[in-house]
């Protein structure tokens, strides 16, 4: 019993690492543009599919393939910002929600156009073994994904704390007008944050697809990442990196201990239920900044 709780917690942390990885992109976009993106899953899917196309049928070496995939993702992120999100700056929040949802749909159907409904095998990129301590197993690929998530988290934190662009992004998040008056092109900052989001989508897409295969359903993970972001607090990278594993653990434990009692399905619902409760108790997430509204 205790052992399986431990197992559940450890593999939950690992799964949560994946959620955090996907969620990073959402936070990056939100931090500078105040747009909550439902598209992150779609970007992930595009990363996975581009990676598949370059590594599989095109047969490029792994390094080159990954670099090209990331470049394609960056370009996609830029186009996304330029052609869909920039024109709707200033419209109500529903507009940005719907545009990002519509983009997610678009990516889903583009994914279907390219690879159909099936599953495309990926060349093995990550090690495929396990570590074990007693009964506790850790999959090496999940561990590696988790480590990459943590590294990216550290990189992002440093970037925001000390990087010039990171500073500009934080400034932009706060006050567009001031940042403009300082000679910073706000629209460029938006573009950069979309590029970064697309890059992180590409990375998570390749990582996920390498263990799972490229399939259109991958985009569904974006939704769960959104839950993680929301519970953690929209602009908080630490919140996200903390909440991802917590959601993973919750999910795992509810699958292990509640699912047999109710006939399954709770793993998918519990994160949302938790989110609902958190929203009721702490509306701006556990680590979010409360915005003061004035009339």
């Amino acid at each position, binding site marked *: 019993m205790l052992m399986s709780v431990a197992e559940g917690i450890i593999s939950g942390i690992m799964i949560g690492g994946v959620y955090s990885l996907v969620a990073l992109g959402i936070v990056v976009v939100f931090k500078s543009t105040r747009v*909550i993106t439902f598209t992150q899953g779609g970007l992930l899917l595009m990363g996975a599919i581009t990676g598949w196309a370059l590594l599989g049928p095109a047969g490029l070496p792994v390094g080159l393939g990954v670099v090209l995939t990331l470049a394609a993702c960056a370009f996609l992120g830029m186009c996304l910002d330029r052609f*869909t999100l920039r*024109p*709707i700056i200033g*419209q109500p*929040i*529903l*507009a940005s*929600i*719907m*545009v990002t*949802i*519509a*983009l997610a*749909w*678009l990516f*889903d*159907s*583009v994914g*279907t*156009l390219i690879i*159909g*409904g099936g599953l495309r095998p990926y060349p093995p990129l990550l090690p495929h073994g396990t570590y074990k301590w007693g009964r506790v197993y850790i999959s090496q690929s999940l561990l590696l994904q988790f480590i990459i998530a943590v590294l990216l988290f550290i990189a992002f934190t440093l970037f925001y704390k000390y990087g010039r662009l990171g500073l500009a992004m934080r400034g932009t998040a706060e006050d567009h007008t001031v940042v403009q008056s300082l000679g910073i092109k706000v629209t460029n900052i938006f573009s950069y944050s979309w590029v970064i989001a697309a890059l992180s989508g590409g990375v998570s897409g390749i990582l996920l697809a390498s263990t799972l295969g490229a399939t259109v359903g991958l985009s569904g993970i974006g939704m769960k990442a*959104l*839950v993680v972001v*929301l519970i953690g607090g929209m602009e908080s990278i630490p919140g996200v990196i903390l909440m991802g594993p917590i959601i993973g653990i919750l999910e795992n434990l509810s699958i292990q201990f509640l699912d047999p009692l*109710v*006939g*399954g*399905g*709770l793993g*998918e*619902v519990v994160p*949302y*239920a938790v*989110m*609902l409760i958190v*929203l*009721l108790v702490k*509306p*701006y997430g556990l680590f979010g900044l409360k915005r003061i*509204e*004035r*009339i």
Partner: protein
Amino acid sequence: MHWVPCGTYNVNYRQDFAIFRTKPHWISLVVFLLILFTLPFYCSRYMLALLSTIGITIIAVQGLGILTGYGGQISIGQAAFMGTGAYLSVILMQRFDFPFLLALFSAGIGSGLVGVVFGLPALRIKGFYLAMSTLAAQLILGWFFLHLRGITGGTEGLHVEHASFAGITFNTPQNKYWLVMVFTLLAIFFAKNLMRTKVGRALVAIRDNDLAAKVMGIEVALYKLLAFFISCFFAGIAGAVYAHYIGFISPVQFTLQDSILYLGILIVGGMGSIMGAIFGTVFMKLIEEFVFVISPMLATWFPGFGAQFFAALSLAFYAIIIILFLVFEPRGINHLWVVLKNRYRLYPFSH
């Protein structure tokens, strides 16, 4: 700017409040209703099915329009509330022998109450956060549809007896169409009038600025929940009518994608207008049908691509249309219609 037909002056409040002001208005209304209700006599069953699904969608979208378009509360859960209504009406009729109309009405009320429960977060949050909490409602309600097997039939769903009242059994495509249309018209009428009452104006005030509305003495909390109730009431009615139209309900009929589509319809049609919801629904449904008709043709002409290539187009079409509208005409089709109408009214003078 909303122009009144030339030469029409309102001399008393009754005239000022009238929806239909002039004789041509009334005549066109009567002609429209006449055409609408005699369609089954000379229309194909396909047309009737199309119009019936459009009618049901209009009821649900009208409800969402009250919540989102007027009240400013974003909801990504309308399909689940519709499902609640559908299940409630069927269960009430099958297990408790409710007559059809009573079951329908109770389903609306029940669905509205469920909506209020999930609308509670709206008291503390708004915008995107609310969107996410209604999304949670969608998933949680969906889980209940699927897992309360004893009541909802689980994945096997429920078979629905034909609705009947006043001695008519609604079992043919024709009279099912009439049933749907009656409720669609009622819903439109109700929505139109609701927006002209105190409630409607309060909702608009809350949408524009809820703090300001509060200062003006509007019970924001009450009205937000009321908006949720009304919206979900509409959804519940739509669901109940849908259940009796289609004759079978299962969890796959009330999905997240439908909920999002309803929002998309609202945007394409034009937020915050009764006509917008109607235009949007008709437009989007026609687009869907268009893709359904052309994709087999395209697949025949270009056999190299395979069937799912063209099948995937319909989602892409939806996505592109929603994006195009948001980018180029965020006020939706309704705005184009208003512009056209005013052009016509002012013709030949430009202003």
